[in-house]
């Protein structure tokens, strides 16, 4: 008999005599997962993830070690098999210790490969660092200056002393490297992007790289949206914005400024003329204080003031300026007022400093420059006062905690006081003006209703992202939303399922307080590199950039502090691949996690025992191919572990072939030191 005939998933199939079900099914184009199977090794059948159903057999069988026989009826894809595989992966994850991706990377809304780009900077390859950043974010120079750095809150280096200066490091390659990206051939689809702020620029950048022709419309005369008209140039020089927009133009995006949605163009028009529309119209409508006298000349909103100064940095201003509000816009407005020449600038905030939503470093910078912070005080009335303004305020105190535990500010009876000022800037928040797109469904909070993963709105072919969906938020969230929407729009245009760019499975060692001391133990203390900046006395008089950027020496030293959290094998790990594919529930079988045990004593090979899944591939490779006893099983049952011979440190194993074992490990337990955490051009 030259072939064996059998039934595979309901269809007649044939295979060479002696073939395993695994080989026969794979030859027929079916996917069967495996951990312990390696074509160079004898079948071992230890992981059982390759299990299939053979009709007539009571239990599932391992396909890697079961030969196909004449007339056999095999099912490799039914629910029973899928469930068994899922359970198998969940059991392996139940005691797995390790991170797929570094906590910085999973915390970054844009999902930038942070350990990767920092590793490139440490190695002196700034071009590769920037390329890696730009896989997820087109505005590295801008965000490298103004991002509020959620990533740094998750950085494990703070368990040693301080988090890595991730954001400032992101700026470094953007300042050093001139970007030149090639235009991608058009797929013949056109998208209207409304809004040239972080969300719109990000959407256009990625869509152009998918071969989609974008026309970007913006109501302003220049690109940048809130990062130009809401952030002063001393924090973000305009040439940085223009340079990064130039890259998007090079990719083929066309820009039409001074074009307002709802006035110069309508959503219906765009929907007719283009194959899809992305709305990134921001939240640029200033909240009103509803305070009597608010309409008087000399009173303006923070965003209006910053917008005007963005167009003319010589704008006249009075001697005494009061800024109302505690957010970053209030701080920006106050520092800008000083630079325009005001003698005294105060920030009035109705709660305590600890409750200010503004970034702590920015508050400190404002105080260093001479801004006065007046907390627990709120404006109640504004009246004209002989060409000036009489501002009446009331003192506040924090009330008793309410049901949610918050202590809300309450006016102190009889504490009103009045002071004469020249300008009042109300920076108390912004909201979305969605009236320009009246056909769209809105949220209860009057922002555009859009799917978080794809940006899909209630109107087919119209996507939205950024502040107009979330309400006023940080720029990195807008950049991330623009990217996700670009993926979704491309899928929409090509008729694929619209899913955005879903994140793969991520295993984590946990929050900062859950991290084993052994993780940080090898790292010696090395202080975070402070960002060089202009002297407060000098800078308060000019719009020159305050933070001058790391020198090369500083950048390399800061990058070298990175602990490189995340797995070197994250993009090739079979455990992660299957966990993603099977959509596992990793906590289903919560057990004791393996103890963190990393051995990087060897000059080339790293062994992380806590990641091992006991597939035995390395042990068998030693035995069958290398003829060396360098790795073996120790212990029994749940306590069994794969260990170097005699449980020695890897460096003490005298075998030149040892590094070859890395290729047999299906997860990241055995990796080569040359396998950098940096992975260019590979999406997670």
């Amino acid at each position: 008999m030259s072939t064996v005939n059998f039934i595979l998933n309901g269809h007649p199939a044939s295979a060479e005599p002696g073939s395993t079900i695994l080989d026969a099914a794979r030859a027929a184009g079916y996917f069967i997962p495996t951990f312990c199977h390696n074509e160079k090794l004898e079948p071992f059948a230890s992981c059982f993830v390759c299990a299939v159903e053979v009709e007539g057999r009571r239990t599932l069988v391992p396909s890697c070690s079961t030969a196909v026989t004449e007339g056999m009826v095999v099912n490799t894809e039914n629910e029973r098999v899928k469930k068994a595989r899922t359970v198998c992966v969940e059991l392996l994850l139940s005691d797995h210790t390790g991170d797929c991706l570094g906590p910085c990377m999973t915390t970054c809304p844009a999902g930038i490969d942070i350990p990767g780009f920092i590793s490139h900077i440490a190695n002196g390859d700034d071009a590769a660092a920037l390329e890696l950043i730009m896989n997820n974010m087109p505005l590295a120079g801008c965000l490298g200056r103004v991002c509020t750095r959620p990533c740094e809150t998750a950085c494990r280096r703070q368990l040693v002393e301080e988090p890595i200066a991730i954001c400032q490091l992101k700026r470094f390659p953007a300042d050093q490297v001139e970007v030149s990206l090639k235009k991608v051939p058009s797929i013949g689809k056109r998208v209207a992007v409304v809004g040239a702020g972080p969300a719109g620029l990000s959407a256009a950048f990625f869509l152009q790289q998918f071969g989609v022709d974008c026309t970007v419309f913006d109501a302003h005369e220049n690109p940048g949206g809130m990062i130009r008209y809401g952030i002063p140039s001393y924090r973000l020089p305009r040439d940085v914005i223009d340079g990064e927009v130039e890259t998007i133009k090079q990719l083929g995006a066309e820009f039409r400024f001074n074009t307002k949605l709802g006035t110069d163009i309508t959503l219906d028009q765009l929907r007719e003329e283009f194959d899809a529309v992305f709305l990134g119209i921001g939240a640029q409508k200033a909240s009103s204080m509803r305070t009597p006298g608010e309409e008087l000349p000399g009173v303006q909103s923070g965003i209006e003031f910053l917008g005007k100064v963005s167009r003319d940095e010589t704008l006249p201003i009075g001697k005494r300026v009061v800024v109302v509000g505690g957010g970053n816009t209030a701080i920006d407005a106050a520092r800008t007022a000083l630079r325009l020449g005001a003698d005294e600038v105060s920030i009035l905030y109705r709660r305590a400093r600890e409750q200010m939503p503004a970034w702590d470093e920015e508050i400190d910078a404002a105080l260093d420059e001479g801004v006065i912070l007046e907390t627990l005080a709120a404006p109640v009335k504004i009246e004209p006062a002989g060409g000036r303004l009489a501002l009446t305020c009331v003192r506040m105190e924090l009330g008793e905690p309410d049901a949610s535990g918050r202590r809300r500010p309450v006016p102190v009876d009889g504490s009103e006081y009045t002071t004469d000022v020249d300008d009042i800037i109300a920076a108390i928040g912004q909201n979305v003006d969605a009236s320009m797109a009246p056909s769209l469904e809105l949220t209860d909070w009057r922002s555009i209703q859009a799917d978080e993963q794809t940006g899909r709105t209630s109107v087919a072919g119209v996507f939205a992202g950024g502040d107009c969906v979330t309400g006023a938020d940080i720029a990195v969230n807008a950049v991330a939303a623009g990217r996700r929407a670009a993926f979704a729009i491309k899928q929409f245009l090509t008729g694929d399922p619209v899913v955005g760019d879903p994140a793969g499975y991520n295993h984590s060692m946990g929050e900062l307080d859950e991290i084993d001391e052994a993780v940080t133990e090898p790292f010696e203390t090395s202080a975070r590199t402070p960002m060089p900046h202009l002297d407060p006395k000098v800078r308060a008089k000019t719009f020159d950039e305050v933070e001058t950027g790391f020198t090369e020496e500083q950048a390399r030293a800061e990058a070298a502090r990175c602990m490189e959290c995340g797995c070197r094998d994250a993009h090739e790990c079979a455990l992660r691949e299957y966990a993603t594919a099977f959509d596992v529930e990793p906590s289903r079988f919560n057990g004791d996690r393996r103890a963190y045990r990393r051995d990087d004593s060897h000059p080339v090979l790293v062994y992380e025992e806590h990641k091992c899944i006991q597939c035995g591939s390395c042990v068998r490779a030693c035995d069958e191919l290398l003829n060396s006893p360098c790795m073996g099983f120790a212990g029994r049952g749940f306590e069994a572990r794969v260990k170097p011979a005699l449980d020695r440190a890897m460096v003490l194993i005298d075998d030149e072939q040892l590094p070859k074992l890395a290729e047999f490990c299906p997860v990241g337990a055995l990796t080569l030191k040359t396998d950098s955490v940096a992975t260019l051009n590979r999406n997670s």
Partner: protein
Amino acid sequence: MGKFESVDAVLDFAIAREEEAFDLYHGLASRATDAGMQALFTSFAKVEAGHKQKLEGIKEGTAYLPIREKATDLKIADYLVDVEPAPEMSFQDALVLAMKREQAASALYTQLAAAVGDPLLAELFSQLAREEAAHKTRFEDLYEDNFLSEN
């Protein structure tokens, strides 16, 4: 204060005020062109209808006014400019309108409590005042979360 000779008369007065509020929000909801504002006004109207139902229950003897501790008065409404009800008003203005109406109702009941001679009726007015103050606090909390988050 001849108007309020009995508990029922007081409750009828309070019920009529809740009806007025219901009519106002219901009218705004039917005239608002923005779907979100329609939903918001409808939710306000439902709240007022709930208050009315509760008062009717008290009148029939099937419900009691909740015993409320005096809540912290955030006094947000005290310092905001008045707004006129309009179908095209913004979310922010709608909250200002609502909190100011509840504030006015609470103030009215407080005055009536002081003016009415019967101690039983005075206590009922005080309870109604606290009830309206609690309603105002609910809108002030919402206002603080949405429009004073950076202030």
